[in-house]
């Protein structure tokens, strides 16, 4: 279970998170929606401890990771897998070395790690790519490899940073399906951030909208669809007109 309470974070004069409260039950799929610059990425980076909060708490199964020492934090990170927006594959390594990276680091033999890597690649729908280099793969394939790497050490929590951004609609939906399959097969808790509403409805048990550093509404996909909140309504219908102003543009 992930519990976030009163999370605030500033970068210089720029206050990005202004007291975020959010709970994700174990086994749930939470999708955080919000516009560009709403602080989604900063939020997800706090969940895995890549950033430390200025104030507030991030509890992972009851442990507050914001106050942990480095060593304990690295221990708790083993519970996590994260898929990055651009996949963030290590471009100096082959595909299987990427997928098996955490296993190799924890002392598994190369041969065994490669077997696991190939199995995880199958799980994300890829075969015969294990000896390729990341630069030889298409964008969609790189995301799949990134996902295979994220699940290689059987994490309990999966984080997705804009999983469908930059993919065509069909590829994007295949990633959505993969995310759903991961949850069913591996029983993981997942948190995704996205501004792709189609994807959000497909993969979410619950949706939360982040606006100006706060969660303005949280609920099931149906509750979000039928929202009475003007901010949320404008965002999910994708309208330039409404209470959310587009910065720097005037007609």
């Amino acid at each position, binding site marked *: 279970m992930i519990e976030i309470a009163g999370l605030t974070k500033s970068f210089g004069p720029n206050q990005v998170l202004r007291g975020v409260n959010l709970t994700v039950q174990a086994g749930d799929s939470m999708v955080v929606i919000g516009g560009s610059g709403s602080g989604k990425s900063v939020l997800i*980076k706090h969940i*895995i401890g*890549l950033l430390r909060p200025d104030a507030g708490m991030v509890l992972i199964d009851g442990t507050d990771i914001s106050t942990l020492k*480095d060593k304990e934090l*690295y*221990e708790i*990170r*083993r519970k*996590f*897998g*994260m898929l*990055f*927006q*651009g996949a*963030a*594959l*290590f*471009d100096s390594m082959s595909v299987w070395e990427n997928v098996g*990276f*955490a296993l190799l*680091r924890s002392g598994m033999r190369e041969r065994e790690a490669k077997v696991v890597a190939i199995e995880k690649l199958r799980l994300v729908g890829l075969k015969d790519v294990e000896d390729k280099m990341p630069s030889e793969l298409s964008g969609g394939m790189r995301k799949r490899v990134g996902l295979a*790497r*994220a699940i290689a*050490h059987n994490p309990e929590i999966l*984080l997705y940073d804009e999983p469908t951004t930059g993919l065509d609609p069909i590829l994007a939906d295949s990633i959505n399906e993969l995310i759903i399959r991961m949850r069913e097969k591996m029983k993981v808790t997942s948190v995704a951030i996205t501004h792709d509403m189609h994807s959000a409805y497909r993969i979410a048990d619950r949706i939360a909208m982040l606006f100006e550093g706060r969660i303005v509404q949280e609920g099931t996909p149906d509750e979000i669809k039928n929202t009475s909140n003007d901010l949320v309504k404008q965002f999910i219908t994708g309208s330039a007109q409404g209470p959310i102003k587009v910065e720097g543009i005037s007609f």
Partner: protein
Amino acid sequence: MYNFLLALGQTLIRFTKITGEIVLLMWAVLREFLLPPYEIKNTFKQAMEIGIKSVPVALVTAVFTGMVLALQTVTGFKRFGAESLVGSVVALSMTREMGPVLTGLVVAGRAGAAMAAELGTMRVTEQIDALETLAVKPVKYLVTPRFTSALFMMPALTILSDFVGILGGYAVAVWLFGMSSVLYWHRAWDNLELSDIYNGLIKAAFFGGAVAIVSCYKGFYTEGGAEGVGKATTGAVVISFMTILISDYFLTAWLFK
């Protein structure tokens, strides 16, 4: 006046901040160096990149430096009839000064730039974040091996440069100017002390460590996409060069009393 003071203050604050961050990175590198697990495989890979692959450039640099030193000495010292000193001049210049400094500059230009560009690209494509999510400490995995390799490979490269530089001087003095081969070696060895060589190697190790730390720092804290990587790389080379040239004076003053 106000603007001048403002700019001065901001520069000072930035300088202090960067110095502090470099010291902290240095501290983290040393801690990770001492704590197991050790990055042996990775360190060898980096030693290959930084050391072995720099050998050709370092050798060409050294041989021509030795050659030009001999050429200048023979032609210049002729004015007061001291051209027989060429062996000493080449040997002392190479071991005390040219060997470490020029090898340092070569390593900064080759390996330092590569470190900054590689780490910078890893930063902007979130590969460094990815390392952390896979429970691997980026400093331990990326910076410590580069630092250790540079620290040990620089003296190794330098001793090669020293030797090859002296040989280059020999070629010019003996083959081109017809000086006695015995005289060249006699002058070279007799006036050379062991301390000239090892103090030069201490300099080299310092330059190696400094280049690695500065370049990794620049790469590690890159921001702003492709342009940022370019800036980080340029910055790494410029700061490395400055660090080598400025610290060289103080190291010389301290080591060669």
